[in-house]
């Protein structure tokens, strides 16, 4: 996806971003690669036998995998180094084969000291409409002025 690195003047309260490219074909390889990178080898994320034994249909992604992927859409949008706060809550399981789509909504635009800030809410939904992750963002945006 394009790294827009949006300016403060380009953003209005109520703006919604719904054209971020979805991630298709979420796979076990995504979860295994995240397990290796993060060191989180909870077998629920790579061993179907373990996941099924406790009632899940299959392995599912780490919450922090979805949080990490969402965070890169965020930094592509507002710029690396401009994020002041980022928070997520995990709402549903991300299963292999899913398509994951993220959206954002600008809730507030304001000055904080010398900084031009925005607060936004974020969401990741799978192709069945299940909310996988909700997020909040505070970013300081550069000004054109």
């Amino acid at each position, binding site marked *: 996806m394009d790294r827009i690195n949006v300016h403060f003047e380009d953003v209005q309260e109520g703006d919604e971003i719904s054209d971020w490219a979805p991630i298709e074909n979420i796979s076990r390889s995504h979860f295994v690669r995240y397990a290796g990178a993060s060191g989180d080898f909870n077998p629920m994320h790579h061993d179907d036998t373990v996941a099924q034994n406790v009632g899940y249909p299959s392995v599912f992604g780490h919450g922090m995998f979805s949080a*990490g992927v969402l965070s890169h859409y965020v930094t592509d949008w507002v710029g690396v180094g401009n994020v002041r706060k980022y928070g997520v809550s995990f709402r549903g399981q991300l299963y292999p084969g899913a398509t994951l789509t993220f959206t954002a909504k600008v809730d507030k635009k304001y000055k904080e000291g010398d900084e031009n800030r925005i607060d936004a809410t974020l969401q990741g939904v799978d192709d069945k409409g299940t909310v996988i992750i909700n997020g909040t963002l505070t970013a300081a945006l550069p000004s054109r002025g």
Partner: protein
Amino acid sequence: MVDKSIVGTEMGGGGMVVERGKIMEFARAILDENPVYFQENDAPAPLTFTMAGAHWPTSGGGGGAKLADLGLDLLRVLHAGQEYEYLGEIKAGDSLTSRSVISDVSEKEGKRGGTMTFITSETTFTNQRGEDVLKSRTILVQTSKAAS
């Protein structure tokens, strides 16, 4: 039920060197192709990078309580959320130390009955110059029955 008196309990500390190769590996794992993470010098840490330190053995710090010591049943504990406050830059080559404290315990009635207990652990990361660069809050939830 978790005893609310655990708020304030020190969970010990840890150490983490921010390695360039780990930044690249982490960026790939979150499908981030931004060249800034692959540059030779001063690559910044991705926003959630410090999760890669949460599973490291403590080096230096340690000595704090473990979750099981606080009366939590780990089989019923799930990661409910994560929050970050970015106070400064974290770059390849930095050496971070962290210290964690239980900052909040609250209860909520679950939709399917039973009480859910939310436990927040707040970790402050300090760099090699003594600057606090990141506050990270991990929100865990303990369900009243075994997760199934």
